[in-house]
């Protein structure tokens, strides 16, 4: 009984973590950028979806769309206003660009977080779910929304896989993650590929944010923990490896759910953190990472 409950709840959480982390790892794989405003963009999407329903009185579908659109705009803003100027700056030495991108996106994330808090307060907001009601799976009362979340996450990740492996644009993205110089030698413009990747990232983060808002609810306080969890999942899986992130998301998601159910919700994040430290010691490049 409880085993099924853990299985079902854990799956939904893990799928959501996986979706959130995929975009994050994609950007790192292609352009070497760790976007620390990730959590803020997800929360912005969720808050936009919430505001669409409660302030603009739109229906849930338009609200969700608006949320994703906001995340897309935010992702582009992050790239053009913060990441690109740092990457192109001649005053920042190359070996320090990484820390500048980290600091820059971190500050950018704090700015987004503060604006959300200013205009929409710090209160937790729950986005009205697209599907409502409860169903019974193997004796576990499961909200339909939870099943919906899991299905959408899997669908989107599947679509992403198709996009990357089966389309021309996707193959260019994949190639850029393997060898940026080779891609430019083939006559493809690297900047355009980056824009495509940030667009994909924006959509992924937006969907993940809106679903999170429906499933667990968000507040401006969730920005930091969301970024941290995406960061740790991605490092656990191996930076830049999408399949590694997916595995890591399920490991972390289930570990947290099992701890929350069997021990205490207060200890929820501790085993995952311990696992992370352990993996870093024995396999610093993560589960499926390349060195």
């Amino acid at each position, binding site marked *: 009984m409880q085993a099924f409950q853990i299985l079902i709840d854990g799956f939904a959480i893990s799928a959501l973590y996986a979706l959130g982390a995929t975009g994050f790892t994609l950007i790192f794989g292609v352009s070497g950028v*760790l976007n620390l405003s990730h959590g803020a963009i997800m929360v912005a999407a969720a808050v936009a979806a919430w505001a669409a329903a409660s302030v603009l009185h739109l229906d849930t579908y338009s609200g969700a769309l608006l949320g994703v659109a906001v995340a897309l705009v935010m992702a582009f803003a992050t790239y053009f206003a*913060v990441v690109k*100027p*740092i990457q192109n*700056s001649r*005053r*920042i030495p190359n*070996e320090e660009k*990484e*820390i*500048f991108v*980290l*600091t*820059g996106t*971190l*500050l*950018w994330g*704090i*700015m987004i977080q*503060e*604006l959300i*808090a*200013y205009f929409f307060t710090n209160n937790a907001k729950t986005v009205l779910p697209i599907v409502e009601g409860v169903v019974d799976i193997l004796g576990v009362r499961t909200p339909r929304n939870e099943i919906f979340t899991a299905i959408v996450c899997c669908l989107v990740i599947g679509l992403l896989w198709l996009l990357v492996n089966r389309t021309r644009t996707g193959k260019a993205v994949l190639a850029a993650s393997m060898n940026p110089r080779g891609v430019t030698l083939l006559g493809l413009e690297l900047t355009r590929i980056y824009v495509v990747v940030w667009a994909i990232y924006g959509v992924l983060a937006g969907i993940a944010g809106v679903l999170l808002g429906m499933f667990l609810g968000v507040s401006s306080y969730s920005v*930091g923990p969301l970024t*941290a969890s995406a*960061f*740790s999942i991605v*490092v656990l899986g191996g*930076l830049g490896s999408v399949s590694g992130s997916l595995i890591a998301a399920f490991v972390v998601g289930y570990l947290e759910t099992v701890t929350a159910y069997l021990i205490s919700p*207060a*200890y929820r*994040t*501790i085993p995952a*953190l*311990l696992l*992370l*430290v352990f993996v*870093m*010691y024995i396999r*610093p*490049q993560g589960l499926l990472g390349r060195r």
Partner: protein
Amino acid sequence: MAGFFTSRLFFISLACVVFAATLPFYVSGYVLGLLTVAFYFGVFAMAWDLLFGFAGEVNFGPTFLIGVGAYTAGILNNQFGWSVYLCILLGALASVIAGFVLALPALRVRGPYFGLTTLVAVLMLQNFIVVFADLTGGEIGLTIPDVITINAGANYWIALGFMTTSAAILYGLSQSPIGLVLQASGQDPVQAGALGFNIVKHKLAAFIVSAFFSGLSGALLVFYFGTASVGTVVDVAVGVNVIVSAVLGGRRTVLGAALGAIFLIVAGEFLRPTGELATFIVSAVALLVVLFFPGGFLGAALSREARS
């Protein structure tokens, strides 16, 4: 090194310290209290800069070192009632041990991986503080029965003296041959190793020094506040402020980090009337500095002087 005592930077710093030392005679206790906190924060930022600017280690968890020092000192005083100075010293020692533990992965993993390890260290510390609430006071905070002194002026002088001493030691260290080896090993560890320098030993030393000052400053800060809480000495947001201070003031300058910290705290206070937008404005200013003056305040000033 000898050139430093005749350089313009030295005289400007000296003038600033002398001026700052006279402040208690004519400003209010409120301003003194603000600057006291800013000075302790300055030490956090300088200790961080030694690790990042010189050893090249991106430490996302300065508050791990600060928090261990602060809480060790606080708990010892709260549980056993040992004297304040003994507690502060033991806090700094605990922080050194923590720095040693934190340095172990740093010698194995690099870049973002190390950054994450340090971030995890903070999250773990935060979790443990909440879990062992009986000992640590949990989310409410730990009450500390003793204080160093309740005189605002005396507290201010202690903080100023402590910051000046730390700045002198850390700056001296950064300009010494050890600092140069650190800088070399941060930029190209393989080559620095090939030149015959023991990188492991130097980096370990940098961690221990950084941890010592972070822990000492953290312990002094909680005895000034009379309380230790996650929100003031451990939270990731505090660590972010430390990092922003160092980058804002100018990384790899040590003194700039202290400047950045003082600016950050004073600016935050000035912007208090803007309410919740204060943090937004400070972050926006910091982002603009990062984008347009990547050298930070002191970096920009020093490069101008070097050019003229």
